[in-house]
């Protein structure tokens, strides 16, 4: 039986990754993600895994892809500036269908901003940071325990769908300490890659280096043999299949918590650290007799469009609090499509949005 432990979000990320069977980590130090690298430097070699501090974030992302193609469950962790540097190779992982997990513990931007202060400014970078059309899966924890479970989940999705999965956490969730009761060791099933004979029709079986298959992997548009192609039909087929394999699993990937949605007239849609304050605000508003509900998102991309559509049908207002100038709110608006009012509540002064400041917004004053 596991014992309850006082644990930091970043520490929970490490525990979740190790429990999921992480074998390889490459990274470059950047606050507020550094604890992840430091802990893994100590833990990984003890369980036969590899930790390497590369010369920069670009190299880290590259090494992670290399290790994954050689058969390992691989991860890197960074924050805003480093995440920007990883983008080209993130696109490479997407087009080559290389499973890997990229943790981004968000801090303020643009640029070095006010280093190490919290923000949620990388939501759109996580979606569209690399060039071109590509699939993306982005998970966002709101608590220490959820950081653990979503890190493990990230490996499962990465392997099954052969996609890079981004764990988009934030300085507050990453550094916050909470008492958590982790699941018993060995209860998280090991993620599986689609191997020959087991792959779904839209995902090619994964072949690793060194298995004698003479695999060809390229970031260029390629045909089913992996060799580069200049065929327009092949190009079209590849990009549509890549996007489609995630898009078609939108419902499966949707991870939300629903509170008081049945009778709600106003619904808060929140994620990450802000969801904690929002939940408290909903509770306070309810106590004061307001019919307020909440939808908490644990998976930002693919976006739970149908959930929002259904809510927008029934409510007067959706409020989207974010520690940015309004990134997810645009996506909510798009899904609501005029069915109800959508209001953003935003802070970019590095302060966490507090429950009390949300109350008037929820109560409509």
């Amino acid at each position, binding site marked *: 039986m596991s014992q309850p432990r006082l644990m930091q979000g970043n520490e929970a990320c490490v525990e979740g990754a190790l429990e999921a069977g992480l074998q390889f980590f490459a990274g470059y130090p950047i606050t507020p993600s550094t604890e992840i690298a430091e802990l893994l430097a100590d833990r990984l070699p003890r369980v036969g895994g590899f930790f390497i501090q590369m*010369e920069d974030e670009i190299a880290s992302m590259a090494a992670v892809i290399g290790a994954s193609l050689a058969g390992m469950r691989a991860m890197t962790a960074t924050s805003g500036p480093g995440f920007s540097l990883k983008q080209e190779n993130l696109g490479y992982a997407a087009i080559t269908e290389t499973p890997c997990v990229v943790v981004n513990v968000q801090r303020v931007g643009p640029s070095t901003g006010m280093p190490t202060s919290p923000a949620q400014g990388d939501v759109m970078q996580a979606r569209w940071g690399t060039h071109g059309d590509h699939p993306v899966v982005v998970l966002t924890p709101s608590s220490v325990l959820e950081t653990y479970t979503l890190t493990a989940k990230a490996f499962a999705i990465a392997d099954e769908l052969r996609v890079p999965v981004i764990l988009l956490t934030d300085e507050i969730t990453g550094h916050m300490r909470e008492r958590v009761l982790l699941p018993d060791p060995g209860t998280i099933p090991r993620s599986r890659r689609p191997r020959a004979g087991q792959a779904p029709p839209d995902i090619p079986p994964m072949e690793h*280096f060194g298995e004698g298959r*003479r695999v060809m992997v390229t970031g260029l548009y390629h045909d089913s043999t992996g060799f580069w192609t200049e065929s327009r039909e092949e190009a079209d087929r590849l990009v549509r299949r890549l996007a489609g394999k995630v898009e078609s699993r939108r419902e499966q990937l949707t991870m939300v918590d629903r509170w008081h949605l049945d009778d709600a007239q106003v619904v808060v849609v929140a994620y990450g650290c802000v969801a904690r304050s929002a939940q408290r605000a909903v509770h306070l508003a309810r106590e004061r007799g307001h019919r307020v509900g909440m939808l908490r998102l644990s998976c930002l991309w693919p976006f739970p469009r149908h959930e929002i559509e259904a809510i927008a049908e029934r409510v007067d207002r959706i409020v989207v609090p974010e520690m940015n100038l309004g990134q997810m709110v645009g996506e909510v608006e798009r899904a609501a499509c005029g069915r109800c009012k959508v209001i953003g509540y935003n802070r970019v002064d590095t302060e966490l949005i507090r429950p009390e400041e949300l109350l008037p917004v929820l109560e409509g004053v």
Partner: protein
Amino acid sequence: MRFLRRENLPHIWCVGCGHGIVLGAVARAMEKAGVDQDRTVVVSGIGCSSRAVGYLSMDALHTTHGRALAFATGIKLARPDLRVVVLAGDGDLAAIGGNHLIHAARRNIGITTVCFNNGIYGMTSGQYSPLTPAGYRTTTSPFGHLERDFDLCRLVQAAGATYVARSTAYHVHQTITYITRALNHDGFSFVEVFSPCPTYFGRFNRMADPVKMMQWLHDGTVQAGQAARMTPEELRGRVVIGEFHRTQEVPEYARSYREMIARLAEGGDHGAG
């Protein structure tokens, strides 16, 4: 030749390009070194030269511009039992990937790197690279190049590479010998091979004819042994080729890491030996 992936031929290179010769030398060296093609991964970046990996019959990884060595590092750590070979251009390895090059050398990780040095960016049509010799013309140095070029062999040797050699597409046998030794070397090995690009380097420097470029490789180079007896004046403008450095005294990185894992499994401490 069994090392070539025939189904992917013909290759993309221009007539008279040296890259085909270097690829041939790599394949022959692999044959001589007894490379097991089911346990070898060839990794490249982006550029004309980096297409070489697509023509070799083994696991192949064609990555992003400049990053081949960083990808290769992940592979080598994950599977130290595999032979990992990087084939890339001078622009790729010395400019955008320069940082990865010096750090791979410093770690002495067991990767064999062959630099296809045409002194230019071929694929983007002839801009200067860090290996363009001063004074030569390119599309981005139309009045003659002002920057000095890297001596890449001295650079990687200083950074910590444990096998370092330079040859040319003209000196094919020498090239095969060096690549063979590099493949059999335990640690970071680096072979720079001059590879003429008549299409861009040649055209801008009155050597559009591939034969003229070969002549230039012949006339402009001098063997290391001979160079040792020459004065700096005599050496000016000439490139020294030869085997510059070879040592087995530095531990290979991936193996060192495995040894650390084994020590920890036995309950050993972190002691820096």
